[in-house]
């Protein structure tokens, strides 16, 4: 029985992962290069091809204006929100960007919105999963920071759609981590999850009870993470360089990226070494060198660590708990490897936090558990259920620019509220509602979510219509609005203008675009992979010809191999994947005998005159590729 697989995806600021549940255990699916982490970097190579991951990270250093990193920091945001980021980001925004428009970033001669860029990363993860399973993957659970607002969540969902994935659920990162933790420990109690990642910080307090993971309170800062630590160090280095050498290299993208790389390496090493040296070669060959001690690093980064304290205190307050009442603390996110952060967490919660689960992988593993639950569950997850909350209060703008709160923060979701509106003018056919998220009293201090235009109200004297509007926050934390004029019973037509998001039409056309590109990309990819395989097999054959195995073949066998080789060479530089595949398989088949002979020869020559311990079985024929090429029907 083939059940359609649902994967769990951690779409992180710095790294992304895809995982699934194998039996009772969640596992991360590695990429082609065998690594579990896919750097969340997207670049455009010299040939104009989109590249994701480790390759893109290399391009970021070489051609920084043609790469984007930490795109998560741009999701669901407007130009005015990212002014700080722009100072140190090497990439450019599209020139013709209008105020209020969704951001567009230039990559080569094209431009892309943040959801489209995230979609490239998601597509890479999807490919990794499909290669691993040898089957299509169309459904996923994607994680988001708990403190992400509606626009940021919607942008993530849009990214999933553009990547060809049906996003069954958005799960909050700390909650996902608690799933992985809870699966592992199977205990009841109150836990706190402290999640400090590359760009976002979340603190969630949960009650675990017989498989129910109930979030009691959550807080955080979606603009706080390892990147801020890096940026601080980069700025200091740039100031240093300007002071010492009189060079202002802020606009020199390659140098900034080189400094960034050095700073990140230094930061990581300082978690285990007391002192490191920062070495960067500046343009013109001048070296820049600076020693940083752990103490100095803590001094420089402390303001950033301290910014996590207020959200933690507020979460405890909202939960109605004192720190001693938290029974376990779980650390999530690469930045929690910093010893000073662990110390801070210990001071806040008066106990040693858990760090046995890999802080880079735990969120993806939790997402895989949730994916499993949604796909129908297995023995391990049968009793498990997530009850999450909305992190921000939802309100409506009222007269005088004040906010009337209708759904309070930390309300368990799905949650709803019903409000009644009426008209101010005779015959008024439309009513406009401005919905916001946040805790402040004035609309101007809250985050605008969207404007809803209720249309088609039957003509009536002012004040007579009774429009019932239902606000529903779904299990993803995303708002849905429906309205009905009660006197006439008529459903109002609602036009939504998201403040920081793409309209449905825009997403649809991006899906179509990516579709065409995906077909193209996929085809091109297949051809490239086949060509690589062909090269490998021909190299092995060349080696085999010079060895004793070749001599042992009959003349007929040798002629056959040569014929197949010629056949492969004829098609391998072309574009016809099917022909290439056929030729590769034929040559593989035709050389099985030779391969065996080569193997025997290699073993016996290695053993000749050596004792068993001295045998070096290093150079045998190359092992078959660990992942069989994905074979699936294109059913689009």
């Amino acid at each position, binding site marked *: 029985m083939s059940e359609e697989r649902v994967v769990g995806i951690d779409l992180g600021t710095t790294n992304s992962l895809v995982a699934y549940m194998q039996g009772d255990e969640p596992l991360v699916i590695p990429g082609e290069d065998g690594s579990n982490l896919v750097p969340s970097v997207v670049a455009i190579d010299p040939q104009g091809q989109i590249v994701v991951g480790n390759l893109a990270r290399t391009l970021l250093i070489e051609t920084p204006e043609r790469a984007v990193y930490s795109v998560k920091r741009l999701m669901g945001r407007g130009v005015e929100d990212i002014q700080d980021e722009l100072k140190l980001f090497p990439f450019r925004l599209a020139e013709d960007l209008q105020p209020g428009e969704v951001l567009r970033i230039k990559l080569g001669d094209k431009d892309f919105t943040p959801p489209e860029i995230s979609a490239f990363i998601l597509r890479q993860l999807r490919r990794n999963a499909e290669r691993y399973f040898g089957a299509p993957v169309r459904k996923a659970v994607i994680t988001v920071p708990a403190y992400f607002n509606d626009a940021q969540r919607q942008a993530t969902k849009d990214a999933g759609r553009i990547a060809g994935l049906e996003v069954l659920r958005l799960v909050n990162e700390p909650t996902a981590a608690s799933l992985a933790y809870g699966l592992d420990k199977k205990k009841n109690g109150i836990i706190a999850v402290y999640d400090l990642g590359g760009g976002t910080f979340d603190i969630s307090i949960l009650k675990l009870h017989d498989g129910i993971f109930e979030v009691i309170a959550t807080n955080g800062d979606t603009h706080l993470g390892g990147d801020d630590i890096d940026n601080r160090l980069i700025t200091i280095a740039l100031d240093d360089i300007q002071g010492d050498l009189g060079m202002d290299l802020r606009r020199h993208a390659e140098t900034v990226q080189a400094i960034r790389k050095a700073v990140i390496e230094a930061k990581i090493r300082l978690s285990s070494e007391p002192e490191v040296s920062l070495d960067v070669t500046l343009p013109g060959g001048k070296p820049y060198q600076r020693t940083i001690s752990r103490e100095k690093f803590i001094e420089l980064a402390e303001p950033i660590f301290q910014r996590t304290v207020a959200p933690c205190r507020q979460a405890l307050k909202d939960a109605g708990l004192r720190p001693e009442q938290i029974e376990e603390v779980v650390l999530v996110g690469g930045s929690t490897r910093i010893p000073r952060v662990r110390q801070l967490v210990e001071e806040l919660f008066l106990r040693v936090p858990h760090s046995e689960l890999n802080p880079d992988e735990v969120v993806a593993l939790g997402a895989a558990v949730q994916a499993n639950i949604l796909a129908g569950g297995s023995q391990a997850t049968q009793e498990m*259920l*997530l009850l999450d909350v909305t992190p921000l209060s939802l309100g409506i703008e*009222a007269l005088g620019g004040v906010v*009337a709160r209708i759904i309070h923060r930390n309300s368990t979701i799905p949650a709803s509220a019903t409000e009644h509106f009426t008209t101010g003018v005779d015959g008024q056919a439309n009513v406009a509602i401005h919905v916001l998220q946040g805790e402040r009293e004035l609309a101007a201090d809250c985050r605008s979510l969207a404007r809803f235009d209720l249309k088609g109200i039957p003509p009536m004297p002012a004040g007579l219509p009774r429009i019932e509007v239902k606000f*529903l926050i*779904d*299990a993803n934390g995303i708002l849905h609005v429906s309205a009905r004029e009660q006197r006439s019973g008529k459903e109002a037509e609602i036009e939504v203008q998201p403040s920081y998001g793409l309209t449905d039409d825009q997403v649809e056309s991006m899906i179509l675009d990516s579709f065409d590109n995906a077909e193209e990309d996929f085809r091109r990819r297949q051809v490239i992979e086949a060509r690589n395989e062909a090269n490998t097999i021909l190299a092995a054959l060349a080696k085999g010809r010079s060895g004793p195995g070749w001599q042992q073949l009959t003349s007929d066998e040798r002629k056959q191999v040569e014929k197949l080789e010629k056949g492969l060479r004829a098609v391998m530089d072309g574009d016809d994947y099917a022909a290439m595949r056929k030729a590769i398989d034929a040559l593989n088949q035709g050389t099985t005998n030779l391969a065996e002979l080569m193997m025997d020869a290699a073993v016996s020559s290695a053993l000749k005159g050596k004792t068993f311990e001295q045998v070096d079985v290093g150079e045998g024929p190359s092992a078959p590729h660990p992942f069989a090429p994905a074979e699936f029907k294109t059913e689009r």
Partner: protein
Amino acid sequence: MAASQKPSGTSIILNHEESSACWSCGSMRAAHFCNACGKVQPPLPADYFSFFGLPRKLNLDPAVLEREFYQLSRKLHPDLFARSSAEEQGWSLQKSSQLNDAYRTLKDPITRTEYLLKLEGVQLEEQSKTATDQARASGQVKKQVVPPELLEEVFELNMQLEEARMNKKAGDVDQDLARQLAQTRQHLEEKFDALFQELQGYWAEWDTLITRAESGQDTSGERRKVRDTMVGLLNRRSYIRNLVRDVNEVLEG
């Protein structure tokens, strides 16, 4: 039909005029799930008490409520309907939001009381937070009614607050005034707690009246009295909370 069937676990049959058949297997429709085949049912307009199969009583065991909440969540949550029809997914979404709203309201004693009073036809109190938000939402100015026994105190306090605010603007700090205000705040907070205790006393009274009503007695007159008393207590309590908030703003702001 359906009027006197006993509740059994989470399959509760409401005292509803219409009992139609389960859309899936045809048997008697239950509040949340079909008794026979277990399929989720379309949402019914139920008040929060009936949603949980509870009588309209003010004392309730939070542990029992929580257990029921978890049990219903395990069956109604959208995560469990990811592979069901779009229609069932819609129902599960509506019902679980109903469940969460109901649990949130009934869990807290004050919101529980406010909700029950609302069911009993009371217009929400002028000073409550809900009234504030509602007034804002519809663009009206909130009515301010001072509880009579607090009139003098409130007058005095408002003068002190005015003075403190002016001082703040000028950058002055009057330590004596600050101390006085802190003292008043303490006094108000004690009153606030005392009102809650008093309210709890009336819960017991209310519940007794409901029990008597269930056995057929006409307690509507007595209920109205208790209801009005509770409304008064809640009003005063809200008013005092707002005063404390004003003091805090000035002292800490």
